[in-house]
């Protein structure tokens, strides 16, 4: 402790900022690395033509379709369940054992690693229920994975709606349900949308659970019972097996750009939401 406090602080700041800047540097490195090698591959043709020759040639259109289908299905299942849960937790009950159990369930679900979801989805949906490797199996599995996030963010969003809104609605004679659907939900929509958009980001990146439930078929899926490959899975296969590095980078670039856009949109939405209520 021989250093003066000022000197000690200066030294600490150097160390701390080094770590912080290193973190930022790592992120920038990853993004730039992928984009530098991958963006040149991106063309309208790359995005609109199907993979050929195992992905060595052609584009990634079928994987884009697969990703969209899987994500859509997951959100369609998880959003009503998640928002419904959030509404229940905030509007229709009080803090007690019931809410603690529900929250505990959601938290535990959030902590389960994706490979266990993959295992579960494979055995239940693909094998026991004979849904096969399909968008249905994958979508169901993914929906379970994103449910906790939607519950958490929707609950926060609904809670942030000022009590005055509810009081005014009640004083005007609305029923509880009317209040929820016509006043609270619309006001909480940006926050809820943020949660859903973040979940979309998660679904797009997810690989372990998807490979074992939706499979890795290269064709454009024709129904929810078809197997399909997502961009993340396609990238994984291309990169691991050295099939085609340029195509791998291209796929990764699409993924990274999509994630970037999702983050920007959700950040903007969240800010708009916060500004509205503070």
């Amino acid at each position, binding site marked *: 402790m021989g250093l003066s406090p000022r000197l000690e602080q200066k030294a600490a700041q150097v160390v701390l900022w080094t770590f912080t800047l290193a973190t930022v540097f790592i992120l920038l490195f990853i993004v730039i690395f992928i984009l530098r090698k991958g963006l040149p591959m991106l063309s309208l043709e790359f995005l609109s033509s199907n993979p050929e020759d195992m992905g060595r040639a052609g584009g990634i259109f079928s994987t884009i379709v697969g990703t969209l289908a899987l994500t859509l299905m997951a959100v369609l299942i998880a959003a009503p369940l998640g928002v419904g849960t959030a509404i229940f937790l905030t509007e229709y009950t009080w803090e007690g054992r019931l809410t603690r159990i529900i929250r505990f369930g959601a938290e535990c679900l959030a902590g389960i690693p994706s490979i266990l979801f993959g295992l579960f989805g494979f055995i239940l949906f693909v094998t026991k229920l004979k*849904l*096969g490797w399909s968008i249905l199996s994958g979508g169901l599995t993914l929906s379970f994975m994103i449910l906790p996030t939607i519950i958490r963010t929707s609950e926060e969003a609904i809670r942030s709606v000022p009590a005055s809104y509810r009081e005014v609605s009640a004083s005007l004679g609305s029923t509880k349900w009317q209040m929820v659907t016509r006043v609270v939900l619309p006001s909480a929509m940006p926050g809820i949308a943020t949660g859903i958009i973040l979940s979309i980001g998660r679904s797009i990146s997810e690989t372990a659970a998807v490979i074992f439930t939706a499979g890795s078929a290269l064709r454009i899926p024709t129904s929810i*019972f078809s197997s399909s490959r997502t961009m993340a899975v396609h990238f994984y296969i291309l990169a*691991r097996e*050295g099939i085609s590095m340029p195509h791998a980078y291209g796929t990764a670039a699409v993924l990274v750009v999509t994630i970037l856009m999702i983050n920007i949109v959700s950040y903007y939405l969240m800010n708009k939401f916060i500004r509205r209520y503070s």
Partner: protein
Amino acid sequence: MNSSRHRNISLRPARRHHLLAIHSGFIILLGIVLLPSGCSRGASGGGLTVAGSTSIQPFADRWAEIYQRIHPDRIVNVQGGGSSAGIQAARSGAAQIGMSSRELKPDEKDLTEFIVARDGLAVIVHPLNLLRGIGLAQVRDIFAGRIRTWQEVGRGSGTITVVTREEGSGTRGAFQELVMHKERIAREAIVEDSNGTVRAIVAQDPRSIGYISLGLVDGTVRALDLDGVAASDANILAGLYPLVRPFLFVTNGPPTAEARLFIDFVLSDEGQELVESGGLLRAR
């Protein structure tokens, strides 16, 4: 708020409803999940599912691509998963055709098998590795972990990085049968789950050794001569090269009509031409 007090009183009878609601919620959720199974058509919707060996998968994909181009009304789905999984899938009906890159075991012989190609197993090293040929016995020693350094083999230096396929892989099964015989591959070996990955690793690590399908050997790795015999199609056809295995399409009983059509295509001249251009050998 006044409403909370009001709620407490009127909720006593409602408590009983909690349990009911929870149970019904659970059951309904289960129902939603189970309902699609009533609508499912067994395997993936209305098409042919071909699943199994990752060694055969690239060829199956190619076959499927061309087959569907010729017959746009027919659908073929190709999945990986490994030879054992493919055989299992054929047996359980999850796939109409299972792909296996190893011989069927005695307890699997009740299934119907079709040889669609023949393939050699190549023992590969990095292109800059000075080693050109090796004895099968030495390969066994290396993969079993008895020989650990390149010095012991006579070329180069450093610890040998052994790369193998995962348990359940037909390629590993074939390697196990043809090279290791009863011995186990060392636990310290690096394990990867596809030929392509094994090749990618050996292509990067100058001290590594691995095995892949001969048809997949390209300029990034070198196939070693085994007991003096070069790894080439000619030597396989001549019966000189020791590591040969069949690529099988497996069905549970006689193949379904759709499966039969696909198998016929694969065994036709057009299908077999693809086999050769891919570096494998024809079925006959």
